[in-house]
């Protein structure tokens, strides 16, 4: 191998990477929170919600789960303006992440809801809680707790999937790598650095989510 590795350019370009990391983090924080809310809503709609709401929710979940994120992103950013609906690239990327995570987490959360013993619904009802109150106060927390590790993995997957948002000029971590390599022509090194950062982000994000799980669900024994 005659190639000489050279990371000297990092001295100049690290601020670009820092901005990129911040953008990636921002996307996953906003996308993650909104996506989980959407997913929770869809999980509720699909397993407990009104019957008329189920077909559209199923269609949404299946459509998103069976098409690539990149195409969803292009459709939102390049396609929707043709239909008179324009978003900035960051809005488009965030929206794409929200609907993507929403669809995946809906399925995960639904599994958690459906594992709820029937007696929990009946106990809620017999205490005069409305179905929505029962869902909110009785069913939801143990359901989320049950599937929290799977949910954490999915959020990490969506974070890693966000690498393609640079395609629509969102200045995320991948953009930083692309930008640096287009100026320094150090493609391998640039991608190597960003890959390492992604790996660190993934490990940190998973750790943070599991830690958060411990805080949100203080009683481990409830997830059964």
């Amino acid at each position: 191998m005659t190639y000489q590795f050279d990371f000297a350019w990092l001295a100049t370009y690290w601020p670009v990477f820092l901005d990129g990391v911040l953008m990636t983090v921002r996307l996953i924080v906003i996308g993650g929170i909104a996506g989980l809310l959407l997913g929770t809503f869809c999980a509720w709609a699909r397993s407990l919600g009104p019957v008329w709401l189920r077909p559209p929710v199923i269609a949404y979940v299946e459509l998103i789960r069976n098409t690539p994120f990149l195409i969803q992103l292009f459709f939102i950013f390049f396609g929707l303006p043709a239909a008179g609906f324009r978003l900035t690239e960051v809005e488009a990327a965030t929206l794409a992440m929200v609907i993507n995570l929403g669809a995946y987490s809906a399925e995960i959360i639904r599994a958690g809801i459906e594992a709820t013993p029937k007696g929990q619904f009946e106990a809620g009802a017999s205490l005069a809680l409305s179905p929505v109150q029962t869902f909110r106060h009785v069913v939801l927390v143990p359901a989320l707790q049950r599937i929290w590790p799977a949910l954490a993995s999915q959020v990490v997957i969506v974070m890693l999937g966000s690498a393609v948002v640079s395609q629509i000029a969102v200045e995320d971590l991948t953009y930083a790598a692309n930008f640096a390599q287009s100026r320094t022509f150090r493609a391998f090194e640039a991608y190597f650095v960003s890959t390492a950062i992604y790996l660190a982000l993934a490990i940190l994000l998973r750790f943070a989510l599991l830690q958060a799980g411990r805080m949100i669900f203080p009683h481990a024994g409830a997830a059964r």
Partner: protein
Amino acid sequence: MPLIAIDGLRKSYGEHEVLKGIDIGVEKGEVIAIIGKSGSGKSTLLRCINGLETINGGSIAVDGAELAADEAHLRALRLKVGMIFQQFNLFPHKTAGQNVMLAQQVVNKTGKAEAEAMARKMLDRVGLGEKFDSYPDQLSGGQQQRVAIARALAMEPMALLCDEITSALDPELVGEVLQVVRGLAAEGMTLLMVTHEMAFARDVCSRVVFMHQGRVHETGRPEEVFANPQTPELQSFLGRSAA
């Protein structure tokens, strides 16, 4: 007018008619034991009274208000009658205290302090004052069932429905739960309980209802029913459960 008036109640699951016309009137302060073979429809009856099942015929009225299927009526009904289940059904993510407070806060919009005071009172009443901060899985079965009773009592119902509330308990824990129920009966609570504890039924109840194949087959004061069963079905049922 009886507190709970059940009139010609019918309930089917698909083709299978489980309740074939039930008439029962429960006066305020009565303690009624419902006995009968497995599958005779005892649980279904209680579940209908609590509005957990839709009924196919007849009527149920509690404190003069007839049961209807819409949400508002159901909630009103459930505020009047509490229910306690065989499987306790405590909320696993909430402490004993939070279990008791929840419905007060959510349904009655009671303030937190007031709900907590009520919860402490009710947990004291079932002898679990010091378990306020324990989670269900840190409690024994008997303690869990007592929390469930406290949870129902905190809504100040007019009547309590109890479905085999000691059947899931280890024998040594049955006593502590029955003790609590005995106390409630003594204080004048209206109770409708499915039970296999014949000795307890004889002791505490004012009336026994024997169900058989979806009908009230025989009914009467416990001393009569147990001493002089009229129908061969009840005779055979009592003979078996005595063995």
